[in-house]
């Protein structure tokens, strides 16, 4: 808990408030009356068995699923009525569980797309290439370069994203999400497919990013080592319902969760991170 903003969620104003979110697909209730808060600056772990509804929750937060009941507030603003593409502008960035890169675009271009919501010039200005456009592009290029450096993507910056190894693609996604300068970052299984050392680096990276960009992070992950090491607070889902919430140390001992999710002996097969 060295860097954790413990007690952050008891601050009067949470950054993200999730209230009674329910999502259904035909007969499947993917989310059932889920409520929780995320304080500014917090890293909140979201865990639960496969099919518990974690990704669905992310999709509700980024409004990919428009029809759900309940309310989501971000920085005090209700998201219900806003179109999906406004989320990035409001400060919600995300990565995807199954890679969702622009496969034919280069890494640099992928990241540049992330800066869309910070752009002010329109079609006509672009077609005529007004000076404002050039200025903007300069600023955008600087931001992209910064992220490329930060995420060690220099070697592949001009390669088409679709041809990169899995782990690299995940990093590109992260860079792309950061390019919009989000306040809240939604990470869906960022450690998936990484080896031990890479997970270590990821943990370090997430902390660095949080500090550097004053991020709040909602982290979905099955890698318990990573979740436990990073999270200030954990929300556990099962069958679409919230089954536990609290500090990592408390949640990991929750008997129901151990049974449904962590498995016997709660042996984190992914060992604890050396942080």
């Amino acid at each position, binding site marked *: 808990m060295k860097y954790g903003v413990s007690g952050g969620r008891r601050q009067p104003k949470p950054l993200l408030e999730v209230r009674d979110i329910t999502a259904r697909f035909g007969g499947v209730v993917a989310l059932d009356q889920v409520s929780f808060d995320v304080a500014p600056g917090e890293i909140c772990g979201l865990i639960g068995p496969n099919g518990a509804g974690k990704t669905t929750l992310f999709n509700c937060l980024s409004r*990919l699923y428009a029809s759900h009941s309940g309310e989501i507030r971000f920085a005090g603003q209700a998201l219900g009525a806003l179109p999906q593409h406004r*989320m990035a502008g409001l400060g919600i960035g995300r990565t995807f569980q199954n890679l969702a*890169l*622009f*496969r034919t675009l280069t890494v640099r271009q992928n990241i540049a*797309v992330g800066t*869309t919501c910070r752009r002010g010039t329109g079609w006509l200005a672009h077609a005529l*290439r007004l000076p404002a456009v050039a200025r903007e592009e300069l600023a*955008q290029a600087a931001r992209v370069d910064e992220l490329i450096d930060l995420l060690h993507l220099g070697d592949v910056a001009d390669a088409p994203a679709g041809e990169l190894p899995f782990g690299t693609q995940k990093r590109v996604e992260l860079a792309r999400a950061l390019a*919009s300068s989000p306040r809240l970052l939604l990470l869906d299984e960022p450690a998936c497919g990484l080896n031990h050392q890479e997970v270590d680096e990821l943990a370090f990276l997430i902390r660095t990013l949080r500090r550097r960009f004053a991020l709040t992070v909602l982290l979905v992950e099955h890698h318990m080592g990573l979740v436990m090491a990073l999270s200030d607070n954990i929300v556990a889902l099962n069958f679409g319902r919230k089954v536990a919430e609290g500090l990592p140390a408390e949640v990991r001992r929750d008997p129901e969760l151990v049974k449904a999710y962590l498995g016997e002996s709660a042996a984190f097969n992914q060992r604890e991170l050396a942080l």
Partner: protein
Amino acid sequence: MPRHLFPAVLLAIACALPFALPSYAVFEATLVITYAVALLGLNLLTGFNGQISLGHGAFFALGAYAAAMLMEHAGWPYWATPPVAALLGGTLGWLFGKPALKLDGVYLALATFALGVATPQLLKYKGLETWTGGSQGLVLIKPDAPFGLPLDADQWLYFFCLAVAAALFAAVHNLLRGGIGLNVMAVRDHPIAAQAMGVDNARIKTLAFGVSALCTSVGGALSAIVVQFVAPDSFSIFLSITLLVGAVVGGLSSLQGAVYGALFIQFVPRVAEQVSKSAPWAVYGAILIVLVLLWPTGAAGGIRHLKNRFIARSKP
């Protein structure tokens, strides 16, 4: 190679061309330009934005008729008609893009196909006959070179079309190389991710449709001015299909591709006819298949590939 060298060389050659060619060939070259402008639009939509259109002939027709009717009924000078065609095409394309938002894949293909199929019928429609000339169409007059320029009518029209085309190519090039271009392609590659990154998919797609239709309309207007005739039979679904074929064979997602595609549209049927009188379209089809097998990503893709290979080989 410097960035602007290629277009600059191309432009220089293009400017020299009409003085080296007989007037019939100049006329043909002008038609190539008009097709290139039309394909530019289709390429933007289908290549860069991933929205398939089997009906772009409709926008070509729109531009052509807009130009023809303004000249015939309102007495407008020819040079004033392309902007109007652009405005009309852009607006109608944008409007058509709205319902098209809901559709993709074959469903969008059908919707655009319907547009292409309906075009000749609408042009023939009795209620509009006084303006469109019905199935007889409208015959126009060929303009002469202004300001006493020492050019014949064909040469002058060539330069006129070339100027319009250069302006449009430059504008589309600008559009696509910046952030908007990235958005346009992002929507094609992964619409969901694009949306999450703050791209307003609906806006991008409708505007892409609008700009695309704008270019194709201007291409149509130029073609009407050059051919000096419009009739419903010129704008059958076959035109739309031809445009798509040109765009694909030329190379989608490449502005050069529009030029190669235009050359294909203009010259390959002729070559086919020379090879076989009895079944020219079988020859055309065979050429098409060979080209696609050879260059699955179009001539532009093939040429890029060759260039890369050459560069790779010339490096030690």
